[in-house]
């Protein structure tokens, strides 16, 4: 039915395009507004003139954000953290997923159950916190890498993908005398590059965006990932916002511009990789859906 434009647009086509157009505008509007605020002058922000176009264009707010060495350090730390986390998570997920595709592996269903059960039941925040504390991981970056290293959901997507690789390919490798590890690295992984890319992005985005574990485990502000840093900026200005009277002081309005610039600062990395994110996430969401 969607093959081609067969006739002149009908009224219903126009209505549907308007409907989609409005939802698209609503999706993008908050970003346009925050960009506009981040690029506007203090005076324009005070007088509530900023909508989706900057008023009194200037980059003062960005200069202040980039002059904040802690903000830059936090961004650098988060990039390093995300890379390490993603690499380790992928290695662990591959190591777990591959053996679980082998029908003749003793205890396979036991191991699968052991993993799947954790998707539906957990000890809860407090026992997890106490464990991290017992292990001496509080206030160290290991607390943001190790406790959330494997996602059972991603593991199952990977296992499903490995299962879909024709067994004949692996069998020919075994007949040539290859061990499991060689088969995995030489045959299976090269055939799985799209799903590996997808899952890497799943892991990377979740590490980039999550702030809960950092809020719980990190008190040393030198180790704050960017989201937690941003949380402070947003929440501090929120408190002033909620208590602010008419004719608020200038300092608060400056904070408004800095807040907007900080939000953009933390969003830009996501926007840069978004073309890849979108492509691989969509295929990953499909695999996840088909798996059921």
């Amino acid at each position, binding site marked *: *039915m969607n093959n081609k434009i067969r006739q002149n647009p009908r009224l219903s086509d126009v209505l549907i395009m308007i409907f989609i157009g409005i939802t698209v505008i609503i999706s993008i*509007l908050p*970003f346009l507004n925050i960009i506009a605020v981040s690029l506007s002058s203090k005076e324009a922000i005070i007088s509530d003139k900023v909508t989706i176009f900057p008023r009194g264009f200037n980059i003062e707010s960005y200069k202040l954000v980039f002059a904040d060495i802690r903000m830059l350090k936090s961004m650098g730390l988060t990039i390093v953290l995300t890379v390490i986390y993603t690499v380790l998570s992928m290695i662990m997920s591959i190591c777990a997923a591959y053996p679980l595709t082998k029908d003749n*592996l003793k205890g396979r269903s036991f191991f699968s159950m052991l993993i799947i059960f954790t998707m*539906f039941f957990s000890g809860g925040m407090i026992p*997890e916190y106490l464990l991290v504390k017992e292990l001496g991981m509080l206030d160290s970056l290991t607390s943001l890498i190790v406790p959330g290293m494997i996602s059972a959901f991603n593991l199952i997507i990977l296992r499903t993908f490995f299962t879909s690789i024709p067994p004949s390919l692996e069998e020919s490798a075994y007949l040539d005398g290859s*061990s499991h590890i060689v088969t995995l690295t030489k045959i299976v992984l090269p055939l799985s590059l799209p799903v590996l890319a997808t899952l890497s992005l799943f892991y990377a985005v979740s590490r980039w965006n999550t*702030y809960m574990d950092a809020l719980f485990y990190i008190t040393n502000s030198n180790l704050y990932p960017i989201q937690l840093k941003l949380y402070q900026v*947003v929440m501090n200005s929120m408190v002033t916002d909620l208590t602010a009277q008419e004719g608020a002081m200038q300092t608060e309005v400056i904070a408004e511009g800095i807040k907007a610039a900080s939000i953009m600062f933390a969003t830009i990395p996501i926007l840069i990789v978004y073309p890849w994110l979108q492509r691989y996430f969509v295929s990953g969401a499909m695999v996840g859906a088909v798996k059921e």
Partner: protein
Amino acid sequence: MFMNQSIAGSKKKVLPPKTIKPKRIAKGIWKDYQLYLLLLLPIAYFIIFKYVPMYGAGIAFQDYSIFKGVSGSEWIGFENFKELFAMNQFYTVVRNTLLLNLLDLIVSFPAPIILALMLNELRIVWFKKISQTILYLPHFISWIIIGGLVYQIFSNKGGLVNNMIVALGFDSVPFLTEKNHWLLVYLGTGVWQSAGWGTIIYLAALTGINKELYEAAEVDGAGRWRKMWNITLPGIRSTIVVMLILALGKIMTIGFERPFVMGNALVMDYAEVISTFVYKVGLQSAQFSLATAMGLFQALVGLVFVIGSNAIAKKMGEPGLW
């Protein structure tokens, strides 16, 4: 012969079928040994970071002392649960969790279905592509950033929405500081964040509908809306049912990040939910046992809901979760 194989497989090796030569046997053992080697670290991870906390949840039945640990603290049975159930706040946070989740389900569940149906009707390919690209974007934005955007847009003073309302000659609306308005903002944010991304699963289901049905309907003179109602919707019915059941299974479980970042002191009547309550009682007031009891209550009720919804899904002939 297989019954007495040890599960870990490290002591007794798998015996391959008799026809295979000794050399191959050794090779087979070596191969399986590698598989267990690969599994070793991930399984250790799950045991340490998933199952040890489940054991640690035992402190819900203890008068836990951080100095004595789980093994040294005194067992006090259901005292923590009694204390919990006697708190007024317990009922408030359970009510709020159910309230937010249920309202979220009502507004956020149909949104992607409607959006997917509309996207599916778009005939101009570039318009559809661009729309999808933009609609998926909010899914990739962290709750902190979304919280920042919300406070920017809905602020009483200088927020975009209130600026427009005032410009139209009305009084500004306390979106973030009055609890009922806040609830609307909370729900709207959920739709904004999830609706676009949620269309993917329905769009995938839509591609599975037999095109001949539409052609036959056109021959019979069916219009666009009629085809949508009589062919498209029934075609994705089972996907809708599965998604609904899964969503119902999660009704008792609420994430921490969204309510925590969106809530503020003035709207705690609605914004305080189980997860934020556990954080405050457990980590901020260090009442570990009480907070763990709350968490365990949620996890157990949540498990019952998931098992129940899965059973319903299977009874309806859908694949279910396991």
